[in-house]
């Protein structure tokens, strides 16, 4: 097979940090080439260099044998390299067709927009690559899997021959992932080349032709699915053997801490998102809530944390009615929250680490003085967070934005774990962070529960819910279904519950 893209000695520095160190990479035409590594291993930087977002400091890139040096994503795009970003870059209020042509419009006479021409071209693409997309609907009305397809068609329309997928499966359901992989294989069969960035090793084995493993900015291995296994890749990535299994501790289930009865709530658009939800979490118990995104998890957590007023129903914390309490009261009564969106809700990226570490603590626990923030005390607590949760930080005065995603998450988790809460609510606590950090956070969750805290784990990562939870609830369309105790149901059975196959699962 011909080599379509070759990198030789590519190095990229950000200040004193070397994000990519002399990377050699050879991508063959018509293959799916996976680039795996922990977050912070330099995958995204590398892809940003290939797609023209960053300029390289050293090294060379050859596209079909010719040296290239892109100054902007536009140049890369003209050369046939396109990227499907993790966060979709679509205009919600525009039609799908308009989204696809954005920036690459065709014009007819007098410089007027020629939508007919665009439509013809896009429809041709859809036929060739087997996509089924309603071009005239608004982007905001589409489910996530569809948005991803739109992104793919968008870069195909721009003439991409090499498609870069940045963590494409993190937003998809199991069925959605299957669909994506089918589409990827089909694209490759039509002669396109795919670079696939991920840290989900199972998927790599499933779909990739070639695998390159990155660690700390450098290539540490090159292999194929036939020659390797999940465990082998994982140990290559972190440099040691990692078992992506939670080590369950023995716990005593105590009194009920959180009791939710008959909870009903609507979202901001007035749509009922929670229907007669009943839920109990006991002291020392980890209850996991599995579900496809948008099934009502967000609203449930908001109700439980005082961010949304429920329509009816009651929420009791240790016997106390907190149905209509504010966030502040929740905090003071001993509820912690690890929010899903760590950058938007979990931290203040402009503030130093220590300021981020004492949020909530300064209210619920407080300092010696009622009005003043005791810097010594604050820093002692922040230092505890950093030490006990091994946050890699050079100084407490550094802004938290200088940390990698995994370290930010460890700091947030640490802050919430160390506040002596009765109940801890976690939303996707390990989203988008590396295996080492996931393993670490899982271990901490276990320890926390073993110490008698009630834990509610809401996660879109089914594997996480199944590994960590003592008891599983499945949310589908605003209702909770019993997912059994730890290990009672198989992944397939829970997957079925997640997608509304209640009867089928019950029969089994």
């Amino acid at each position, binding site marked *: 097979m011909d080599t379509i893209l070759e990198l030789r000695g590519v190095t990229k520095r950000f200040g004193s940090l070397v994000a990519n160190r002399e990377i050699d990479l050879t991508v063959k035409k018509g293959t799916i080439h996976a680039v795996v590594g922990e977050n912070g291993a330099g995958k995204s930087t590398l892809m940003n260099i290939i797609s023209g977002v960053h300029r390289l400091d050293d090294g060379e890139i050859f596209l079909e044998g010719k040296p290239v040096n892109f100054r902007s994503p536009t140049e890369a795009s003209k050369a046939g390299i396109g990227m499907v970003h993790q966060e979709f870059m679509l205009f919600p209020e525009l039609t799908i067709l308009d989204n696809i042509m954005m920036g690459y419009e065709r014009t007819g006479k007098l410089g007027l927009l020629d939508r007919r021409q665009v439509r013809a071209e896009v429809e041709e693409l859809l036929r060739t690559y087997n996509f089924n997309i309603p071009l005239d609907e608004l982007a905001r009305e589409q489910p996530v899997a569809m948005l991803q397809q739109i992104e793919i068609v968008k870069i195909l329309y721009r003439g991409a021959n090499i498609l870069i997928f940045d963590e494409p499966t993190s937003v998809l359901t199991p069925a959605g992932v299957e669909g994506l992989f089918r589409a990827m294989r089909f694209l490759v069969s039509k002669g396109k080349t795919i670079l696939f960035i991920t840290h989900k090793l199972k998927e790599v084995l499933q779909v990739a032709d070639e695998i390159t493993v990155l660690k700390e900015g450098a290539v540490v291995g090159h292999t194929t699915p036939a020659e390797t296994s999940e465990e082998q890749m994982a140990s290559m990535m972190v440099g040691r053997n990692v078992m992506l299994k939670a080590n369950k501790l023995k716990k005593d289930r105590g009194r009920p801490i959180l009791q939710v009865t008959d909870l009903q709530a609507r979202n901001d658009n007035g749509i009922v998102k929670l229907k007669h939800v009943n839920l109990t979490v006991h002291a020392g118990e980890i209850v996991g809530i599995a579900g496809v995104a948008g099934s009502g998890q967000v609203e449930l957590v908001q109700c439980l944390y005082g961010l949304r007023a429920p329509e009816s129903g009651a929420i009791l914390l240790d016997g106390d009615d907190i149905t209509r309490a504010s*966030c502040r009261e929740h905090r003071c009564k001993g509820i912690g929250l690890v929010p899903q969106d760590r950058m938007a809700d979990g931290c*203040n990226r402009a503030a130093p680490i220590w300021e981020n570490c004492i949020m909530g603590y300064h209210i619920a626990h407080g300092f010696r003085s009622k009005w003043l923030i005791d810097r010594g005390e604050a820093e002692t607590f922040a230092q505890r967070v950093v030490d006990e949760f091994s946050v890699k930080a050079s100084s407490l005065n550094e802004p938290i934005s200088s940390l990698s995603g995994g370290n930010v998450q460890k700091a947030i988790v640490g802050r919430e774990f160390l506040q002596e809460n009765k109940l801890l609510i976690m939303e996707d606590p390990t989203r988008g962070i590396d295996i080492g950090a996931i393993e670490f956070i899982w271990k901490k969750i276990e320890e926390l529960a073993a110490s008698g805290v009630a834990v509610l784990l809401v996660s879109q990562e089914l594997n996480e819910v199944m590994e960590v939870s003592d008891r599983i609830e499945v949310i589908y369309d605003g209702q909770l279904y019993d997912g059994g105790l730890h290990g009672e149901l198989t992944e397939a059975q829970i997957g079925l519950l997640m997608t509304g196959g209640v009867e089928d699962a019950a029969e089994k």
Partner: protein
Amino acid sequence: MRLKNKSELLLETLKYVLAFTAVAVIGAALISFQGAAPGEAYAAILQGICGSASAIGNTIRWITPCIFTGIAATVAFRSGVMNLGIEGQLYVGAFAATLVGLYAELPGWLLPLACLLAGSLSGLLFALIPAVIKLVFRIDEMITTLMLNYVALWVTEYFTKIVKGASANNNSKAMATPVIQESAELTTLVPRTNASTGIFIALLLVAVVFVIYRFTKVGYEMKQVGENLRFARVGGVRTTRMFISIFLLSGFIAGLCGAVEILGVYGKFTPSFANNIGWDGIMISMIAKNSPVGVALASMLWGALKAGALQMERVTSTNRLTVELIQAMFVLFVTIDYRRLWGKWKDRQPRKRTAGKGKEGGIC
């Protein structure tokens, strides 16, 4: 301003020096365009700032309101409250202080204190209006405060007429309230100037706000609310209460400024007397990057330039608006994100550098 290390401090200083030099050069061009010698004009400015005891007094007089409005803006902007109504709150405060100064009968220092309180509380109440509108009707405070500035301006003018009663003449230029009781006035610091003890109130305010931000829980929360509202709410900060408090505090300070202007400088309320001092505060807080100490420093520069400009106009043929133009340009130069500019410029460099390397390699 949290400065992490020496190089950062150097960079910041460099930025201000650069901006200052740039506007000095542009200013020189503007002055020569008007037919005066720039050197002479600048000398006159300097003379006006610190050339004599009365010059210094005048400089202090102008620094005082700059600090007040600068702090009023800083308190609001740092927490993400877009209070553009400082000018209006200042008018309301000034008018209320005048009324108390005219009619209240209180012994000794109680009278000026009552005036200051009346001024600041009126400013606070006037700021309550946009705050409530925002919370009840969800109308952006940027619009409401902007509009309420006009309300304050015209309503105080209207009430000035009422205070003057039947004898009011219709020439609004000459219109003003009677002069307040002498016992209400603030002590003059430099004889025959308008420098008053108001400067001490201003500096005390800077110190108090500095301490609040640096050491208190409230200050910590005020900062977090401004930098990430959602984070603060999840963390348990009462964000609605915080929003109102900050709005009221900002209005309180603006009203206080109005009262000090009346008690320390004018002695009576004249409609439209403030001449955009409220807006100066917004610019000052931008230069100071919302730091209280920075506000004090920037106000010194700002107030000095204001005092100097008046002197320049007296001795040269240059219009004093030139200085205002220069001040505005200074704000522009300071608010440029030089770091990003530098980054962009550097981004273009590697290409040249690698190209250069290639050549060297060729020679070897």
